[in-house]
């Protein structure tokens, strides 16, 4: 293998440096589907016992499993490996920076690019391997033990593997490229979260804005119609669903358990290739970025000021999104529950919701800004008093 791409020394170093983190990744990645499938099995058993004969201990266990494993377990656990791989990517570069190892590394017979490619290669290989046991567990369960009822098809286990692996590869690559440029660990995580959530939030906000805009028109029959008949908000809503990390994270496992293949949208089938292509593109970006810039240059790439702006945008968009969705929910409720009101005065509701959304967004931004300024002033004052003391 090309020594400028991989070196034995770098692989050894990465393995030695990352082994504790790897343990946590194993815990996060390896046990998530297993715990999830245990939850599914227990629920299945519980249902069987409930229908055949009552068993005093199991319903209680089943309730516990339902509460802890399914609702707080399998669904929430599917976030864990994706989040863990994101942080791992950030940590890989951040550990070098904090340890001031980069000069040492680059003073040795290794290329800048091999530093990145070794990290990326190790990360992707680990993700691919660590998800395999989970896929095997799901496959075994899909095939079912003799005489038992298989709760899901084999193809769903494969789908789970590819969706989960693709997402983890992508978030790992996002973490790695962000970790290259960002000065501190906290900052890197902040940027990484922004990178993962921002596209979704932007589309969500646009979708909510269009859906909530006072777009009311008169149909050819002379009826006053609302925006719900428009194709644009629907298309945006589809895009919003596809871009939503939760759609994949939350349902990567959940879809295997509860949805039939017919119900699984096409986007799930595209997740793996799309994520892999994006992951490779991000890796290439990291590869070039680290290869071309000097240590000092890439350290200065992402500044605190830029992060503040990104954070402001993220929090503002999140809050606006929440407001938008709450408002939209209210509007939908109003439409469903109060057809009378809608038909009589549709523009009234929509205008009200729209006003709440816009004002909410502005207020949130203003509050954020004031909080930010206040915290900064407080920190400065404390620093000054410490200096005087």
């Amino acid at each position, binding site marked *: 293998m090309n*020594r400028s791409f991989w*070196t034995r*020394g770098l692989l050894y170093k990465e393995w*030695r440096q990352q082994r504790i983190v790897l343990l946590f990744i194993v815990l996060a990645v390896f046990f998530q589907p297993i715990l999830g499938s245990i939850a599914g099995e227990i629920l299945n058993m519980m249902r069987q016992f409930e229908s055949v004969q009552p068993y005093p201990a199991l319903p209680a266990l089943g309730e516990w499993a339902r509460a802890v494993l399914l609702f707080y377990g399998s669904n929430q656990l599917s976030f864990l490996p994706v989040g863990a791989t994101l942080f791992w990517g950030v940590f890989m570069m951040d550990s070098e920076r904090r340890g001031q190892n980069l*000069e*040492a590394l680059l*003073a*040795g017979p290794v290329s800048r690019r091999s530093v990145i490619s070794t990290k990326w290669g190790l990360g992707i290989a680990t993700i691919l391997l660590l998800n395999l046991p989970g896929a095997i567990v799901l496959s075994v369960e899909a095939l079912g033990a003799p005489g038992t009822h298989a709760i899901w098809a084999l193809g769903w286990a494969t789908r789970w593997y590819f969706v989960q692996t693709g997402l983890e590869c992508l978030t790992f690559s996002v973490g790695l490229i962000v970790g290259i440029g960002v000065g501190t660990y906290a900052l890197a995580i902040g940027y990484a979260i922004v990178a993962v959530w921002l596209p979704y939030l932007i589309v969500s906000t646009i979708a909510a804005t269009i859906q909530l805009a006072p777009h009311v028109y008169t149909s050819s029959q002379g009826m006053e119609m609302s925006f719900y008949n428009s194709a644009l908000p629907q298309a945006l809503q589809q895009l919003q669903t596809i871009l939503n990390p939760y759609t994949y994270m939350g349902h990567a496992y959940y879809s295997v358990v509860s949805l039939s293949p017919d119900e699984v949208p096409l986007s799930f089938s595209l997740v793996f290739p799309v994520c892999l292509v994006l992951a490779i593109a991000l890796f290439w970006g990291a590869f070039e970025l680290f290869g071309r810039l000097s240590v000092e240059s890439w350290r200065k790439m992402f500044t605190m000021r830029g992060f503040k702006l990104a954070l402001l945008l993220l929090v503002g968009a999140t809050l606006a999104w929440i407001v938008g969705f709450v408002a939209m929910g209210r509007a939908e409720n109003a439409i469903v529950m109060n057809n009378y009101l809608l038909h009589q005065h549709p523009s009234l509701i929509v205008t009200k919701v729209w006003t709440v959304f816009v004002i909410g967004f502005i207020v949130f931004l203003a509050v954020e800004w004031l909080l930010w300024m206040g915290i900064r002033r407080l920190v400065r004052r404390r620093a000054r008093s410490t200096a005087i003391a």
Partner: protein
Amino acid sequence: MSAVPIETRGLGKQYGRMQAVADVTMTVPEGSICGIVGTNGAGKSTFLNMLLGITRPTTGSAQVLGVDVRDSSGKWRQRLGYVTDQDWFFRQFTVGEMVEYGRRTWKHWDSARCQHLLDSFELAKTQVVRSLSKGMRVQLAFVTALSLRPELFILDEPTSGLDAVVKRQVLQLIVQEAAAGVTTLIATHHLSELERIADRVAFFHKGRVILQSTTEDAKREIRRIQTVFPQGMPDEIRQAPGVLRIEQSGSVYGVIVEHDPEHILALCRRHDPVYLEEMDVDFEELFIHIMHKEGYAREQIILD
């Protein structure tokens, strides 16, 4: 190995508006020990980082071991040993793991030499790097740099944090390696140490090389004349051109003169000195003189 281990032409580095290093042209011959000295922030470390390929030059060119430092493969650093006082080791590694990393990274790694050096520095393989003192980490850096059997040795403040005994050990190692043909570039503020081992020296100030020569030639920049007069120091000598400073210790006068001291010696002889001798100045004196000429002077700070 190339005939010239280090050769730079018009090398420069600019950070935004700040010119960290400007127009450095330098040649370091094989087997020599070249000292880099300069004021704080003079650009010494940036210059070394450019030679190592860590920092990209913005102007000029540099060839190290016959390879352009912009070569991104890094293979040319197989025969380059680097020691710095900066805390850059993989802190969670043990000494043994550091050695293992070295063994897997450098093709010419000499395990026997490594073990010999570890024993000499009394470093145990089980010790964790973060638990080592600063001096011990520098010793470990020397172990790594010498075990890869370097052709070129780049040292940035290598004796910082070392006790006097280990410092001597380390300086002896540098001289020993130079005798075996290893070229050494050493940046330091410890001028007395440099004076003992270097055969060439380059003075940096504000990113520029203001003087580079052999140490012998550099010391000819200024000379010290040690003399004793029965009637005290004659005014004629005090006011003679070329006299930079006169120091007095009891009846012994030290006259620091610029460049050629012959006319001052002749002047002294005319006043029948009891004792007269021309001497080398030490590097510190030379450094202060050169920096003073560049306008770098600090007044004495007097505290209440």
